[in-house]
């Protein structure tokens, strides 16, 4: 943000959001002994890395980066993740759902069940392994109803559970990250950002993104109004009609539950225009797993999901 040239004290909405997020990250650094920042290579976590740079450079980040990998991610995203961590010279820890499956702590109902919701188990295992007292994540309150009441500093008990009825009051910018051993705080520095804010920030900061965020041609199958990409993990079923469609991803996550949208937006500027005029919410357009029940996110969060 180019605050240097401003003549009077006004902050644009992005400046304000950025300043708030930096303040939150520094509170984590000041209050927590052993935090970690989740980094997936997705756009929200890419924004978080820039915010962490703004908060702590020229110093190193006072936390490692942590990715919980389902093993079902797009290779472009994983490559990007590794390159970015390396470029920043920060420590990246990867823990995988496949390891939890080998340990027997994750048991799939069937071989093709999505591993997405099982990330919670692997995350809790990583928290225990490293003794993290806080995990910083890129969730936003505008994503989903259950998130609208989420705190910026959200307390989780020894089982990683979120109790929506028993949250710590959060007043002013006085955050309370205190925990006993085994308990944990989830911190959401971009809670107050919307999808549009994220894209506007990516544009103003000229942030690099994995290529699949931009329009590209991809084989897909149309399913219930959503586009299901054809991949090794999501192969075609008998009767499916494969089409080559110009698409982009609005969010990138586990392949089994993230759908692309039809789009010819090849630049961040074009995506901003699309986002500002879109008629479907980010989750509605892209989540293959949230459709089942209105309350499914709340349920998963109670179980320790991010």
């Amino acid at each position, binding site marked *: *943000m180019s*605050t*240097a040239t401003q003549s009077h*004290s*006004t*902050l644009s*909405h*992005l*400046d*304000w959001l*950025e*300043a*708030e997020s*930096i*303040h939150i990250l*520094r*509170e984590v*650094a*000041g209050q927590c002994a052993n935090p970690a920042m989740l980094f997936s290579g997705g756009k929200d976590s890419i924004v978080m890395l820039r915010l962490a*740079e*703004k*908060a*702590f*450079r*020229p*110093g190193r980040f*006072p936390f490692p980066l942590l990715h919980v990998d389902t093993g079902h991610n797009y290779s472009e995203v994983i490559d990007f993740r590794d390159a970015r961590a390396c470029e920043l010279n920060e420590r990246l820890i990867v823990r995988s759902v496949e390891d939890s499956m080998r340990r027997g702590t994750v048991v799939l109902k069937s071989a093709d069940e999505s591993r997405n919701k099982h990330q919670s188990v692997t995350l809790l295992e990583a928290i225990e392994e490293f003794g993290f007292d806080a995990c910083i994540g890129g969730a936003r309150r*505008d994503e989903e*109803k259950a998130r*609208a*009441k989420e705190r910026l500093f959200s307390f989780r008990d020894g089982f990683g559970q979120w109790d*929506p*009825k028993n949250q*710590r*009051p*959060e*007043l*002013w*910018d*006085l955050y*309370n990250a*205190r*925990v*006993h051993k085994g308990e944990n705080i989830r911190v959401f520095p971009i*809670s*107050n950002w*919307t999808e*549009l*804010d994220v894209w506007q920030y990516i544009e103003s900061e000229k942030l690099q993104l994995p290529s699949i965020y931009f329009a590209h041609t991809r084989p897909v199958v149309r399913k219930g109004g959503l586009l299901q990409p054809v991949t090794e993990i999501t192969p075609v079923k008998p009767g499916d009609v494969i089409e080559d469609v110009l698409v982009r991803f609005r969010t990138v996550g586990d392949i089994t539950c993230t759908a692309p949208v039809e789009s010819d937006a090849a630049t961040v500027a074009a995506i*901003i*225009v699309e986002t*500002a*005029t879109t*008629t*479907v919410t980010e989750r*509605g*357009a892209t989540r293959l797993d949230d459709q089942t029940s*209105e*309350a499914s996110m709340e*349920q998963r969060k109670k179980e320790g999901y991010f």
Partner: protein
Amino acid sequence: MSAIERLPEFEQPVDNGLLRFLTCGSVDDGKSTLIGRLLFDTKTILADTLHSIERTSHRRGLEAVDLSLLTDGLQAEREQGITIDVAYRYFTTGRRKYIIADAPGHEQYTRNMVTAASTANLAIILVDARKGILTQTRRHSYLAHLVGIPHLVVAINKMDLVDYDQAVFERIRGEYLAFAAQLGIKDVRFIPLSALNGDMIVDRGERLGWYQGPTLLDILESAPAAHTESDERFRFPVQYVCRPQKADDPKLHDYRGFMGRVESGEVAVGDEIVVLPSERRTRIKDIQLYGQSLPRAFAEQSVTLLLEDEIDISRGDMMVHPEKSALVTRQIDAMVCWLAEAPLDPQRKYLVRQTTRESKAMVGGISYRVDINSLEQAPAERLAMNDIAKVSFKLAQPLCVDRYAENRATGAFIIIDESTNNTVGAGMIL
């Protein structure tokens, strides 16, 4: 909801920053409908969300879409049919971004409202035109004023149910002004609405021709942002000290950056500053934000300050200008809102966190508790959840404070119970 309608607004370079506001009202005054309206008429609601509430409305046998469903919260709350916690909503007009803190009207009301109010710069207080000013209206107004929200808007809703009668509006307005004066509320405006029909929210509608003032959205668009109105005295609580000491970069060997957010006022390179509580003085050598040097920094900016002299400073210290210092004290009087199920126990020690500083605290005494319905003061031994009281504290460590009425950032504190680590109280220094 046409895409074309939204486009031109985003092309405009205008950015009036961000406004955080609070909505409060008694149950059924129309708060959810009002918020739904704001989101709907500013085209924040997207088609899939709309379809989902349409389905729900039909399932419940309603004819029209119930906009209040948009702000329906968690499953537990849906089951009980009430909202029990503060929810945050977002919308943008292309000129300004808004964060609504939606404080529910039921039990635990005081605690929720104080929480929602703590970050708001404007409050919309809903009144049902048929019912006029109720005890709740007084309570909401008192709390909004207590928590220092500078701008109040009294929205007289359901005007359609009183035939859009100007006399009703004027009567409620007069009654409100009389008691607002008693409370010391200065900045208050009034607006007639029908949230159901959308009159005077984003569009003027056709039935309130006698009202010449701005629409609700116009009021929001022109309300001052919080940081432009904050205390002019410079306050910089240190959050974190950056000492990279990279062996391979001699330039960074002696780097000591003090990281934090300007909570109020302004600071420029070359300014003399005092560090509290040590009272050591030095000058600002540089103000940095991500490698960039800024000539100055102002309220609500997160920056890194570099100083001329090497003095011992750590998290919890606060930088101020020498001629406009803060009070360094081990004893505070405050209005406290008790937030926890377990009552305040005057025999126990608590932890107080104010800015980036913490201290153990003992209750010196409870001067009085405010009956929040009658607004009368009465003596009290203990405080239960939702109580508001004047309490004095003795502190183990000095805090650097201002009066809350003058500075919401340095006058506020939270009370933490060390046995549970829960946040149990909120305080505003007198």
